[in-house]
């Protein structure tokens, strides 16, 4: 159902293209089958910081998104991961035109939607729909499910004539796995997972080509998450949808995405196919992020090298100069302070065929495997011995000198 193979091949092709020095065209596209339907170029969103109530003075700007570029192909899933405050939700809002970008372009089939208004904008919006994080606050409690899912038809009556709407809504309920007879119920009569299905049905109502999903499962219980993830997977196959899937949970993003972009402080620091990002990450932030994710396997405690980052994400109102990650990076040198690293295939990997050759915004990019290869963790029985740990890269690495030895699982034996 996903164009996995061709996607990877395309990615390599794209990597070749990326050797061209120009910065804009190598936003890491892996168009499975020609033209991307969505091209995002140098997207910027700055929020003014003001002081004073009567006379407002601007005292600074919060650089929520500061130059983000990527492509999305039809039927593809692009995952965007990052910690809170990295700007991933702001990107989502700009894609569906809930926020107007400060600069940059969002091209839907070649047309820049940030400049559209009126009827033309309305037509484009029909094709890019959103699913929100919180199924409790994103549904109006005073409207019935039928009214919620049918509301898009009020705005776009050409999609469904009045007489047909009720039937259409019932079809949609059926598609997302809810009983069509629930059409007259209110949101509070449903559980979290069911509400998220209602939100998804609303997103599907206008037959969009792109769905922007901002943390669609993070508010749900573990046993319900899988149901909704599977539903999203199935709908993609059924309707040929393209997803921009935004989440902080790296495991879910890997599961659902064809390509993944990693954001840090308003920028994409690394982007590539799921295999490139998860198995061959070259940016230190991606590596730290991946190594910090707890793997649900106690045998992995002893196998995994953990990179413990020091400190918190700096404020986007006052981001560090040069590379924004340098204040938490163990590789940072003077160059990182002076020179902004471009998102491109790092020079060392340009001539290799290796999957490490994908866009990564680091002056000192090097490949490092932090997620144990598949199968290693499946090993039944006790831990496979200390020697292997040593060979695999030694005990956990501590980035912050004063933190002392960071405890890894292996020290817990007693």
């Amino acid at each position: 159902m996903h164009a996995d193979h061709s996607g990877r091949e395309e990615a390599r092709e794209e990597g070749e293209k990326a050797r061209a020095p120009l910065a804009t065209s190598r936003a890491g596209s892996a168009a499975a089958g020609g033209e991307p339907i969505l091209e995002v170029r140098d997207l910027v969103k700055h929020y003014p910081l003001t002081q004073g109530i009567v006379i407002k003075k601007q005292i600074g700007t919060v650089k929520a998104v500061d130059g983000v570029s990527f492509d999305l192909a039809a039927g593809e899933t692009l995952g965007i991961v990052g910690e809170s405050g990295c700007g991933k939700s702001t990107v989502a809002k700009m894609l569906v035109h809930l926020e107007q970008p400060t600069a940059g372009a969002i091209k839907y089939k070649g047309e820049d939607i940030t400049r559209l208004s009126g009827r033309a904008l309305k037509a484009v919006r029909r094709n890019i729909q959103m699913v929100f994080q919180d199924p409790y606050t994103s549904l109006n409690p005073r409207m019935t499910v039928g009214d919620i899912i049918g509301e898009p038809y009020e705005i776009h009556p050409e999609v469904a004539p009045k007489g047909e709407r009720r039937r259409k809504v019932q079809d949609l309920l059926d598609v997302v796995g809810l009983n069509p007879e629930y059409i007259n119920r209110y949101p509070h009569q449903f559980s979290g997972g069911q509400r998220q299905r209602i939100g998804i049905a609303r997103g599907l109502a206008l037959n969009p080509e792109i769905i922007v999903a901002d943390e669609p499962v993070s508010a749900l219980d573990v046993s319900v998450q899988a149901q909704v993830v599977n539903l999203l997977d199935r709908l993609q196959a059924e309707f040929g949808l393209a997803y921009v899937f935004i989440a902080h949970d790296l495991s879910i993003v890997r599961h659902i995405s064809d390509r993944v972009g990693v954001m840090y402080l308003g920028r994409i620091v690394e982007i590539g196919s799921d295999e490139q990002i998860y198995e061959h990450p070259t940016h230190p932030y991606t590596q730290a992020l991946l190594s910090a994710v707890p793997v649900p396997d106690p045998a992995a405690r002893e196998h995994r090298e953990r990179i413990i980052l020091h400190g918190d994400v700096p404020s986007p109102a006052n981001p560090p100069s040069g590379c924004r990650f340098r204040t938490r990076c163990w590789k940072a040198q003077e160059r990182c302070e002076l020179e902004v690293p471009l998102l491109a295939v790092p020079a060392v990997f340009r001539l290799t065929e290796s999957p490490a050759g994908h866009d990564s915004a680091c002056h000192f990019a090097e490949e490092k495997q932090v997620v144990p290869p598949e199968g290693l963790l499946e090993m039944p029985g006790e831990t496979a011995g200390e020697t292997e740990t040593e060979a695999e890269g030694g005990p956990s690495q501590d980035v912050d000198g004063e933190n002392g030895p960071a405890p890894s699982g292996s020290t817990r034996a007693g």
Partner: protein
Amino acid sequence: MLLEVRDLHVEFHTREGVAKAVNGVNYSVAEGETLAVLGESGSGKSVTAQAVMGILDMPPGKIGGGEILFKGRDLLKMKKDERRKIRGQEMAMIFQDALSSLNPVLSVGEQLGEMFVVHRGMSHKDAKLKAVELMDRVRIPAAKERVGNYPHQFSGGMRQRIMIAMAMALEPSLIIADEPTTALDVTVQAQVMDLLAELQRELNMGLILITHDLGVVADVADKIAVMYAGRIVESAPVHEIYRAPAHPYTKGLLRSIPRLDQKGRELYAIKGLPPNLLHIPPGCAFNPRCPMAQEICRGEVPPLFEVAEHRESACYFWKETLDAR
């Protein structure tokens, strides 16, 4: 044994009826041991912990029966002020949401120092020095300068460190951490979990970690108790439960989470929804969602079967669950 919960029952009397939040829970923690209590929302994992701490809202809550033995003494039979002495000194709790658990109008130094003033009778001046020492210990940079800051001036990770500092202040022998890292980003979560594990080792404390995250559990726990609808459905040492779960619910949970090291196709999904505590299904509470359910599961509540040494499962078909891998 440091703490032993025996056949604990907690119910909430609401307008719609009696919600049976905890229905006969047994677990124990030894010194230096980490017990993870795993469950979804509404499984009763937090309510059990609140009953142990003695911070349950009563009413509407009501302890319907059971014993909570702390160092051999039943907490439920103690007088109020006796319990208050134990709380804070001997057992402490870390909450999920540090911002709403800390007092916004007191500086963190005052809140940390208060522990020493109240329980140890220190002067405010000495208590402030102690507060700085504690903040240093949980690795808050520039502790001396920041001791006068208010909670809102700290980031989420730093606030959680302050919560940990406060819990550790009087070096208790038991810490209960209720989803301590759920609100944090992964990189910060790793910092905080490491800190917690390190301090636990140092002070040889018992730790009850309440969470819904199977990943966090695998990283730090010694043993697990899986809760569903107010009951423990499976308990086991951590390695064994991940290798071969003996309850269909645990098994379903483990199979339903996407993994970082695998590009899966379709996820296994447990069908249905967690039960409403006002109407817990008769028999095994998991039976409407269980792929193995038989007639017997709908009739009688399954007891805890001994699967192996230190391993129990509340499933009539634990053997089949274990074997069918």
